[in-house]
């Protein structure tokens, strides 16, 4: 293994955000005194890193914790545990331990676009007001400058600048989503967390918004975290994809690698379940039995084992860790049946070149 491959995320200068063992538990209360009787483990120990300028896709079925993780990253939710290490210049600091002033500054860097463009714009405020407020709060004092900025942003998302005096109801779904994207960009963020940005849109409009997002990424050197349940959309948008299941990351790899060479049986089944709009490429579907278990009462061991075709004894006992594959150190998988690198192995083996 060469030296460069051994770099930890903290040493790799392209890494902008590193998540370490992020957890978000919601208490379940019962009785008169609201006694805590259990937890819904929405996100249960997610560790991953994001490189500058890339798009990291988060996919999974409903209830797998992808949106909760996204909201933890923008700190709309405070994680129950873990570290959110973000790069400020040359240094990393944990977003969760910043003081109020630092936190305010940090918020500018990560913005969010929500799923439903109808409920995420205030119906009683014009587009101008919706954009003006964040600009004012984040220190653009000159009204003329703010107006120019808003006009510029609207043009960037292919809307006419004079639309800024209109109300949200005057726009179609696709236009509203473009407005939401422009609003997220008004404080010049480095990273945008997009939570199902195209799911509420019609197919013909989806393509417009996805193309626009790709263009803006290039122009403004943005880093996206793209959350969606539609695998084709995620594959199209992302450079790397993390597959989530019941609050855990099951597999993380380059998007092409993940499609061609899925290792985790869940990823394999998930990819095979997607209907493909091309009759020359039809394939055999792997149909999973049963439903996703409740995150309040997850199965023992590997969360996927009750539905897994290849389930072994060990899968019922022990939860697998997310580890790199022996054959490809950029391909991470959490499965007992895959040939992964065990960190407890003696470092001596790390020095020997692989065949």
């Amino acid at each position, binding site marked *: 293994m060469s030296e460069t491959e051994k770099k930890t995320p903290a040493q790799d200068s392209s890494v902008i955000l590193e998540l370490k063992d992020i957890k978000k538990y919601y208490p379940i209360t019962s009785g008169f005194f609201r006694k805590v009787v259990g937890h819904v483990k929405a996100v249960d120990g997610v560790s991953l890193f994001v490189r500058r300028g890339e798009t990291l896709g988060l996919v999974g079925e409903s209830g797998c914790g992808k949106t909760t993780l996204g909201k933890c990253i923008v700190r709309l939710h405070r994680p129950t545990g873990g570290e959110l290490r973000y790069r400020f210049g040359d240094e990393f600091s944990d977003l969760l331990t910043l003081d109020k002033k630092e936190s305010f500054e940090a918020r500018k860097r990560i913005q969010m676009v929500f799923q439903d463009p109808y409920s995420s714009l205030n119906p009683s405020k014009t587009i101008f007001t919706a954009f003006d407020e964040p600009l004012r709060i984040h220190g653009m004092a000159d009204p003329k400058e703010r107006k120019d900025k808003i006009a510029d942003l609207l043009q960037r998302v292919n809307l006419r600048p004079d639309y800024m005096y209109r109300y949200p109801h005057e726009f*179609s779904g696709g236009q509203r989503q473009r407005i939401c994207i422009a609003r997220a960009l008004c404080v010049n963020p480095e990273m945008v967390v997009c939570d199902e940005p195209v799911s509420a849109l019609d197919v013909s409009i989806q393509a417009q918004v996805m193309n626009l997002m790709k263009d803006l990424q290039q122009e403004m050197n943005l880093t996206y975290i793209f959350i969606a*349940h539609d695998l084709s959309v995620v594959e199209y948008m992302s450079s790397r994809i993390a597959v989530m299941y019941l609050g855990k990351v099951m597999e993380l790899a380059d998007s*092409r690698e993940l499609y061609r060479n899925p290792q985790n049986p869940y990823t394999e*089944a998930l990819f095979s379940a997607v209907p493909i709009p091309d009759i020359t490429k039809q394939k055999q579907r792997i149909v*999973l039995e049963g439903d996703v278990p409740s995150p309040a009462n997850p199965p023992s061991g590997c969360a996927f084992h009750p539905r897994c075709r290849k389930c072994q004894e060990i899968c019922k006992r022990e939860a697998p860790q997310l580890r790199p594959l022996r054959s490809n150190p950029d391909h991470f998988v959490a499965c007992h049946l895959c040939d992964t690198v065990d960190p407890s192995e003696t470092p001596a083996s790390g020095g020997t070149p692989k065949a």
Partner: protein
Amino acid sequence: MNENDYVLSIKDLKTHFAVGSRTVRAVDGVTLDVARGKTMGLVGESGCGKSVTAASIMQILPKAGKIVEGEVIFRSKGKEPVDLSKLKRTDKQMRDIRGKDIAMIFQDPMSSLNPVYRIGDQICENILQHEKVSKDEAMNRTIEMLGKLGIPKPEDRVKNYPHEFSGGMRQRVMIAMGMICNPEVLIADEPTTALDVTIQAQILELMKKIQQEYGTTIVLITHNMGIVADMADNIAVMYMGKIVEFGTKEQIFLTPAHPYTKALLKSVPVLGAGDGKRLTSIRGSTPDPSEMPEGCAFAPRCDFCLGDKCNEAPPYLDIGDGHMVRCWLCEGGVKK
């Protein structure tokens, strides 16, 4: 094909809605033949009139909606053909057909099930309405059907209420309710849109299985091109209340002729294409249905618009082997 091979023949169906003083032409001249025992995929974006077409067949339109023109011929096996559009929604004949000969399953299984009745009773009701059988026998048939649809321990589950089922299980209950009287036609209106992909795969496999077993004709309404590619034998593409293209699955996917179909196919990412090729988007958005353009409804968004000619409504042309296209570009049966 013989006329009798078509279980449903819709001719120039027009369903209009009165919204205030305006008229919304939700379905504006749909002509469609549904072959017996096959799956017909009806695709289009939201608001194109695919659900209203289904509701018109079933006569379950909301009060504001009215079938103003056209006919819906239903040819039940061993019976005289009936024109459903001429029947009143409350006619005995219509009520006998609805739920027994033509059944429907809806998109959202939670809001289509009554939350305060047990699952078993809701399914039984359909049998008791249409057949003279005892309650016990109806319940036994219900249990058998639920078992067939992969619901574990159906004899216990019939006593449960809808909230005790997961989304996928509820959709199975909906299918059971539709299939319990062994209908000739099952209309599935976006049956998997509210479900996750792995559950969607289960439901689609299930629908294939019941079609094989019972020989049911399925009309599958969806906006997902992937689902029709997998499920349908014939496909009709709808845009603004009209069918713009109709053909076999091969004709639609391999040699699409209408600019809208072509654009629709190019605007969705294909999983595993992995080439990062830019998607072709369709410019603009769908027009307001109460202010529809006079001629071709797609003309304002069309890259191949011929100008003045497209201000006139294009004819519905056969361009060979039953491949029908509503476009001036295909005039004279030639694909350009």
